[in-house]
């Protein structure tokens, strides 16, 4: 009888483990599991400076509902955030503030550049406006548009999640900037000295 009871717990192919055990765990790789957890639990920091903020409110509101994709609670301190949403025109006067916010975020962290002004300066080719925030901080995903459609923002979010799934802890991943990880970008310079020298990205 004892032998028979044990046979009930064998799988059909003869390996140990029964139906109840099979339902209680799955196997994965550690790196995959970490990346999966990260990409669906963004703690966003909305750095909203201009009219794109209206579109940001729309896309995070109930109609487009980025909660569905893990873009959830806005945290109004960078120390609790891992996704910096830069939404709107950044002026040179604002630039040191944006950089300090980015420096205050703990790794792992990502940056979404939201809208044409943030990507390139947009139409403002003048004395006041930063010509693309990637001249002062590294950017992981660029969402074009003036302002971007909510669908574009969601598409950018999904593409960012695909990238995060490929990321490996302490190992850089190929991205638009080459193989430089944000971790290395930060470690190459003095921390939290604003204003200070900045290594720009060269595409």
């Amino acid at each position, binding site marked *: 009888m004892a032998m028979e009871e044990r046979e009930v717990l064998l799988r059909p192919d003869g390996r140990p483990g029964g139906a109840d055990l099979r339902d209680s765990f799955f196997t994965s790789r550690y790196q995959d599991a970490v990346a999966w957890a990260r990409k669906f639990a963004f703690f966003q920091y909305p750095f909203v400076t201009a009219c794109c903020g209206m579109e940001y409110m729309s896309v995070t509101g109930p109609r487009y509902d980025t909660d569905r994709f893990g873009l959830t609670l806005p945290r109004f301190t960078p120390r609790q955030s891992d996704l910096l949403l830069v939404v709107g025109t950044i002026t*040179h006067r604002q*630039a040191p503030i944006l950089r300090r916010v980015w420096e205050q975020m703990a790794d792992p962290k990502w940056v979404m550049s939201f809208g044409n002004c943030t990507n390139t*300066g947009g139409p403002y080719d*003048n*004395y006041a406006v*930063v010509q693309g925030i990637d001249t002062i901080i590294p950017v992981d995903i660029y969402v074009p548009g003036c302002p971007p459609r909510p669908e574009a923002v969601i598409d950018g979010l999904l593409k960012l999640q695909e990238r995060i799934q490929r990321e490996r802890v302490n190992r850089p991943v190929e991205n638009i900037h080459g193989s430089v990880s944000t971790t290395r970008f930060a470690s190459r310079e003095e921390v939290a000295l604003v*204003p200070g020298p*900045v290594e720009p990205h060269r595409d």
Partner: protein
Amino acid sequence: MSDRVAEEGPEGAEAGGAEANPLLRSLKERFGERILAIEAFRGDATAVLAPAALLEVATFLRDEARPAFDMLLDVTAVDFLGRRPRFEIVYHLVSTGDASRVRLKLPVEEETPSVPSLVPVWPGANWLERETFDMYGIRFDGHPDLRRIYLYDEFIGHPLRKDYPKQKRQPLIGPGSQGEAGGQGGGR
């Protein structure tokens, strides 16, 4: 300045010219030669005056004119690069009593771009004059706190002057800022 005489003015100049406007007429009578020109166009009254007369004219418009111009709406400047005098400082006044308006213009030479501050007359002139100083480099004599208002202290020059290079950048951080090796000052 002959183009400022209302009789030769563009279409839309008021019938009877600026002389028919009672406010402009009273200004002309009271301040005489110090009012350099007057014009009226589609209900907008403008007086061009010498900078030295500004405080007196402003005080008159605030206290004695009827309606009294109790509100300074805007201070700005125009850069006529290549013309003499190069700058024109523009004040827009409004009367909250009957919503009538008057515009004052002050021609200012490039070498001495300064005019009296209107803060003693209208305290609201404070930030408006700071903006005009920031963008055009016009000095306002007697201003209590003449600092830049939009731009940062490190900024050199005044960007709305017509001879400020359009592409010139003065970033605080990033490419072109001080401390950045090989910075071109031109953004990307």
